[in-house]
């Protein structure tokens, strides 16, 4: 192991250290004052995020070919750190409201981020799996954190059982691929497949099992049924974190494994993946239409967004992957923001997530209302937001590769989705508030929301920098 290796994985090291430090600080702090460990995590993840960008050099392989240190890894590590920081900023108000006083919460959050970062830079299926499990095990705990709430416990159980189930699928698939090809490294797999004619039955079944495993992880239809319950049961901060970070982490795996190392076998799975993309976006949107609970609505809508992203994987070109990267960054901003607003609203008396909680918010809390409106318009895909450009970029990549029908179905789906996102805006601005509906709005919180919404508009209006960066980053 050389110094260069260590420097390349510096962001990961910082995050692990942050997680450990958060636990130590938590023990040392008097009266279980969790804000100390929150500070540690925000600071540590922030540094890791900045380091990720600067640590990025030309694409190189580290640690005996087990780790990529390329632009894609850099961007996604930064994204995960950012998602972690935002989640940590959103957390205290929620944890206090729910009477959760655990310093481990922040440590686990950092461990999750570590797992995601490993997934982003893994260059072999084995390391990817290690990252995935590190993330998942921390998430199992976080999802079931509200032990006094049956919904949370149920969500935790479901996530644990089905998560383990899907991990088993992935692991089995990896084992079969190893049996068929003789290696777990992405590059070697790609090389072997390029040189061989056709694929053997063992590799083929390995690919099929990997596909199922990934479909579980990104909650693609028909393997999505766990996610609405889990999303609803989990603490809302963790829902926000999962729907953006964990999803992006799984997608980068999908891009590296299916988009690249298995790319030469695409004829065997591209039809299946297209079908999955179509049903995923359609089912997600149609079911989201009927939800009366905002948290569940966002859960189903995030299934739909996974469907749009799958279109990018199906398209399979460099541009499509860059588009997916852009989309994931934009999506993280808007979905985290939407959940962030939801967390504050949750404190309006009843603590439910019905649409009623939104009534009159546009007038009572102009800043919150405006940011929420930006998040919703971006989720619909109205220009000039990141959501619009992301969709445009993904679908145009698909059209370029000849998947015109897929793009049209995706576009029609965004028209369906407009209905339920608009309902949020119309409830905020077009219904009168009932009773006292003010909520506390800590400054950092408001600032985070404002910055997210401004970023959404800026990278939507001037996408070029990010698009170029993504294109350069695509491995």
């Amino acid at each position, binding site marked *: 192991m050389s110094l260069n290796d260590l420097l390349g994985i510096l962001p990961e090291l910082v995050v692990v250290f942050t997680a450990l430090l958060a636990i130590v600080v938590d023990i040392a702090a008097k009266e279980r004052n969790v804000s100390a460990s929150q500070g540690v995590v925000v600071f540590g993840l922030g540094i890791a995020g900045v380091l990720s960008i600067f640590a990025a050099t030309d694409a190189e392989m580290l640690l005996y070919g087990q780790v990529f240190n390329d632009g894609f890894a850099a961007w996604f590590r930064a994204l995960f750190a950012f998602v972690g920081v935002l989640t940590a900023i959103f957390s205290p108000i929620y944890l206090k409201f729910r009477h959760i006083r655990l310093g481990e919460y922040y440590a686990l959050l950092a461990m999750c981020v570590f797992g995601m970062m490993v997934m982003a830079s893994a260059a072999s299926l084995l390391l990817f799996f290690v990252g995935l499990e590190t993330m998942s095990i921390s998430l199992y705990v976080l999802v079931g954190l509200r032990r006094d709430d049956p919904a949370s416990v149920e969500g935790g159980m479901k996530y644990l059982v089905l998560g383990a189930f899907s991990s088993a699928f992935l692991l089995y698939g990896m084992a079969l691929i190893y049996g068929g090809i003789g290696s777990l490294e992405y590059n070697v797999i790609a090389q072997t497949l390029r040189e061989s004619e056709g694929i053997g039955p063992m590799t083929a079944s390995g690919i099929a099992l990997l596909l199922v495993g990934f479909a579980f992880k990104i909650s693609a239809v028909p393997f999505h049924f766990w996610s609405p319950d889990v999303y609803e049961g989990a603490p809302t901060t963790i829902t926000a974190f999962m729907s953006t970070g964990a999803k992006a982490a799984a997608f980068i795996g999908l891009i590296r494994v299916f988009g690249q190392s298995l790319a030469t076998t695409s004829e065997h799975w591209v039809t299946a993946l297209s079908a999955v993309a179509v049903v995923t976006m359609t089912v997600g949107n149609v079911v989201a239409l009927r939800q009366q609970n905002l948290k569940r609505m966002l859960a189903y809508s995030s299934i739909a967004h996974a469907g749009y992203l799958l279109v990018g994987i199906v398209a399979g070109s460099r541009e499509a992957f860059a588009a997916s990267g852009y989309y994931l960054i934009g999506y993280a901003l808007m979905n985290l923001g939407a959940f962030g607003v939801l967390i504050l609203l949750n404190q309006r008396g009843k603590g439910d997530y019905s649409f009623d909680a939104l009534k009159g918010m546009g007038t009572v809390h102009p800043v919150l209302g405006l940011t929420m409106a930006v998040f919703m318009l971006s989720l619909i895909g109205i220009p000039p937001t990141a959501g619009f450009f992301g969709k445009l*970029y993904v679908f145009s990549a698909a*059209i370029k590769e000849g998947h*015109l029908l897929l*793009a049209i179905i995706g*576009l029609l789906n*965004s*028209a369906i989705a407009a209905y339920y996102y608009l309902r949020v805006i119309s409830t905020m601005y*077009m219904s009168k508030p009932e009773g006292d509906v003010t909520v506390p709005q800590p400054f950092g919180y408001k600032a985070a929301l404002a910055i997210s919404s401004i970023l959404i508009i800026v990278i939507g209006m001037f996408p070029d920098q990010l698009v170029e960066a993504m294109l350069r980053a695509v491995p």
Partner: protein
Amino acid sequence: MLLTLSIAIPAIASLLVLLLPRTSISLIRWTSLGASVAAFIVSLAIYANFQVGEAGFQMVEKLAWIPSIGADWHLGVDGISLFLIILTTLLTVLCIIASWNSIHERVQEYHFFFLLLEAGMIGVFAALDLFVFYVMWEVMLVPMFFLIGVWGGKNRLYATIKFFLFTMAGSVLMLAGILYVYFNTVDPATGAHTFNLLLATEQAKYALDVQRWLFLAFGLAFAIKVPLFPLHTWLPDAHTEAPTAGSVILAGVLLKMGTYGFLRFCLPMFPQATLEFVPWISWLALIGIVYGALVAMVQKDMKKLVAYSSVAHLGFVMLGTFALNQQGLTGSLLQQINHGISTGALFLLVGVVYERRHTRIIADYGGIAKAMPLYAALFLIIALSSIGLPTTNGFVGEFLILLGAFSANTLYGVIATSGVILAAVYLLWMYQRVFYGQITHEENAKLKDITAVEAFPIIILVILAIWIGVYPDPLIVRMEPSLQLVLEKFQQSEFSQMIGALPR
């Protein structure tokens, strides 16, 4: 820089309005009025700089915007878009004046959205880049959604969501079409794909079946906006629920984006498909003319009546466009402007009595000409211009359209002419029931006549209506060369044969 300026002024002013303190309402109103007047003056400067006799785009501006995908900030104006831009800036000024005394709630947001809307509308008409066009087309939806949804009538929520979803459904398909065109257009300078509209039109040589799909993808979005029968159902709801100024803009400008889209995109880029669709669209337009008029006749609500009359009027515009001859096209473009003037004024007029009585039901009025003589006079002139009485603007436009329709197909002409008669029936009948006879409701006896602030926008529109009716030449000479350019494609030999063989 004039075109960019005309978009930038309202856009920047809208942000400025947002930064002003919420409570200084009159400052907000004056800012917004000042900005819209400035934009109007800029549009007059565009008119002054416009070279008569030139068919192509003038005052073209081009700046790289998103080089990685080949989208430029590319604007220009020709005879087709010139008057639509002026109409937009003029109606915005008038609407802001008309909102002065009728909007009291959330004034700041109202003006923010109104100026944003103006920027978007000008952008749609000035765009020479498909990407800019689409962005502007979508951007406009949001302020309109809010204008209806926040300041509208009782059923505003239903109406505004219906409006948004209809338009959105159409425009996503258009986006797919735009992307397809994009991948078939190459910038000769760089060899990369481009959204440049001029190149896209020039290089458009699609196989017929591709043309059909593209025509439908673009055309559906436009037909919904027009709205062409049977896609019109969002319009009466949106019009009725919108606040007065919202209705004026909807009828005056937004509907024109559909007809403009056909002229700008469908006809020049997909000529063969256009020829195939001529009978279909003509018949739908004819159904719209007759159906819109018949339904308008039985309306009890004045605003609904005007809304359905828009369906009929836009049917004329579509019929003229798809007559594919010089008279039809000129008439149709002229009628687009006329409809903006006359129907805009009608909505303003209905708004005046609504402010006083909070009802738009025809039966609640009667004999009010006695109480409001000036109002009655203005209403009559505008009603007559909407019917198309000679020496008013409506006459010139409809006459040209009918000429075009007759020379394309006699049957079309005959049916369309019956629409003119029906228009006289529903408008004059309404006028009689509202203004003449005895005052049947006591509260109407004390109605205050139209005030100076209310009358000002209407008087401006009356002047325009008569001016265009008497002397339409300044408009026509600027429109015709650009329209001729559109027609040239259809007059080439291969096409003229196809026109002759059309199933009429």
